[in-house]
């Protein structure tokens, strides 16, 4: 059995003296696509930040790619790509698409973080992977929501990470763009990489996820989609959940309004 790419052992996290994650246990092997779902305030983003070594748990132990994200934070960050929620971006800061993608490379370098020819090539390669190379000189803020999400994924991919952490990248995108992004992420996984995606809704990532983690401060369910996707388990986290049949498909409505 290979070493797990992610190992979380009895991890508990406090923010402002309140427990936001309580006794989380998890073990994942690669290649894998883990979908984390949960209502608002469930601790999903906190969980991602804990994996990155930004938030330190008061209890438990984490290993990302065999490394301790607090002791070996720089090594972990070298192997991890991160895409934040869209509302964490300042659209007032007018950066070009090229500058945004280079950010993902230059932040891994030491100051003065001089841009090399190789950096530009790597950034352009990541953009071309997402069919966005012609937007290099465009202002990021002037792109559509879907294009912006692609640029942010390109920024995360530019340094060739082993693990990609996505924080609600599908929120607010139309179905067509969601499907395009999903096929790109599937390709990433098929190349032996791992993806952890936090989403508020089960759709659309559910179709490609290998594992689902239902989180609401603690783990309510974890396993293959077929094991986790039953109303009884999901209702513990989403009390207003209901499912409907439409065109022969069962659609789950979580009934939790997104902030």
């Amino acid at each position: 059995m290979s070493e797990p790419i992610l190992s979380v052992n009895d991890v508990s996290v406090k923010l402002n003296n309140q427990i936001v994650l309580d006794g989380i246990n998890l073990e994942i092997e690669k290649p894998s696509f883990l979908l984390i779902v949960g209502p608002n305030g469930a601790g999903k983003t906190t969980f991602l930040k804990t994996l990155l070594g930004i938030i330190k748990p008061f209890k438990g132990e984490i290993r990302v790619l065999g490394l301790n994200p607090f002791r070996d934070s720089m090594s972990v960050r070298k192997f991890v790509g991160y895409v934040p929620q869209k509302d964490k971006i300042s659209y007032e800061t007018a950066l070009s698409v090229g500058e945004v993608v280079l950010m993902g490379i230059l932040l891994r370098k030491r100051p003065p973080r001089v841009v090399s020819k190789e950096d530009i090539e790597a950034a352009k390669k990541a953009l071309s992977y997402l069919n966005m190379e012609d937007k290099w000189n465009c202002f990021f803020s002037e792109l559509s929501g879907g294009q912006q999400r692609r640029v942010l994924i390109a920024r995360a991919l530019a340094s060739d990470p082993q693990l990609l952490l996505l924080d609600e990248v599908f929120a607010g995108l139309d179905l067509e763009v969601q499907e395009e992004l999903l096929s790109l992420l599937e390709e990433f996984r098929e190349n032996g990489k791992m993806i952890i995606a936090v989403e508020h809704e089960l759709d659309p990532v559910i179709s490609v996820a290998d594992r689902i983690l239902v989180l609401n401060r603690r783990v309510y369910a974890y396993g293959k989609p077929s094991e986790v996707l039953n109303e009884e388990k999901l209702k513990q986290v989403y009390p207003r959940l209901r499912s409907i049949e439409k065109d022969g498909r069962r659609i789950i409505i979580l009934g939790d309004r997104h902030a």
Partner: protein
Amino acid sequence: MLDPFTLRAFISVFFMSLSAPIMVIMLLRGALYITPEISHAALGGAALGVLLQTLFITLIDPFIIVILFCAGVAILTAYVGRSGLQSLSMMMSALLAVSVTIYALIRSWLPKEKRIIVDGYLISDILLLSDIDIINLAVTSIISFLITLVFYKEFIYICFDADTAEALGLRVKLYDALLFATTSIAAAVIVKAVGVLLSVALLILPAAASRILARNINRMFAASLMLVLLSGAIGIALSYQFNIPTSGAIAFTSTIIFALAYLTKLKK
């Protein structure tokens, strides 16, 4: 040929303009509104500085205490402000009250000739700056400008996406503290040149006008710098022409330039 007073005023305007780029970064960080509080903290710093100078004779230049005091206030405000807007506004108000109280208390204890120095920080006349003042302005404004240039990428990354910057290993809290400390140095330069009351016109308005006139960040830097130079040059000319206080004329010009920039935006 310019008289020495006017020449020193022009030189001061040049050094004030070097403070403009860091104000643009504060604007992009969404924290420009803290700068008036930082400039008001200069009053408390000036009173403390002059008191220390009185007690220890000429060992301490009050301007250094002004910079340290402003930096302390700015960093504390930024640190507490991370917990939310309510904490930020509470800390801003409290530190403003503390700074003004320190100023009022110490001022009342100081001998008359020392009070003039402290009051010079409240309303300063750019024509009356001494050679030592010019050297102080030169050193501090060049330091703030160099910090802005050297850490430009880090500051901009924090402005654009602090979460990812932190996720990729940038010490966001440290660079935020550096940003606020550098802003304090820049604010102290402007306070020294035109006084606390008029400083807001040169701290906020050129950066705000540059945001209206330019999109690209480097162009915003250039525009804000040029607007301070323009306000200074026109202000000094107006003060000679109409026999009005020079610092006031510079602040007035800066306000008019901002108003014109804003009107252009409305017309578009």
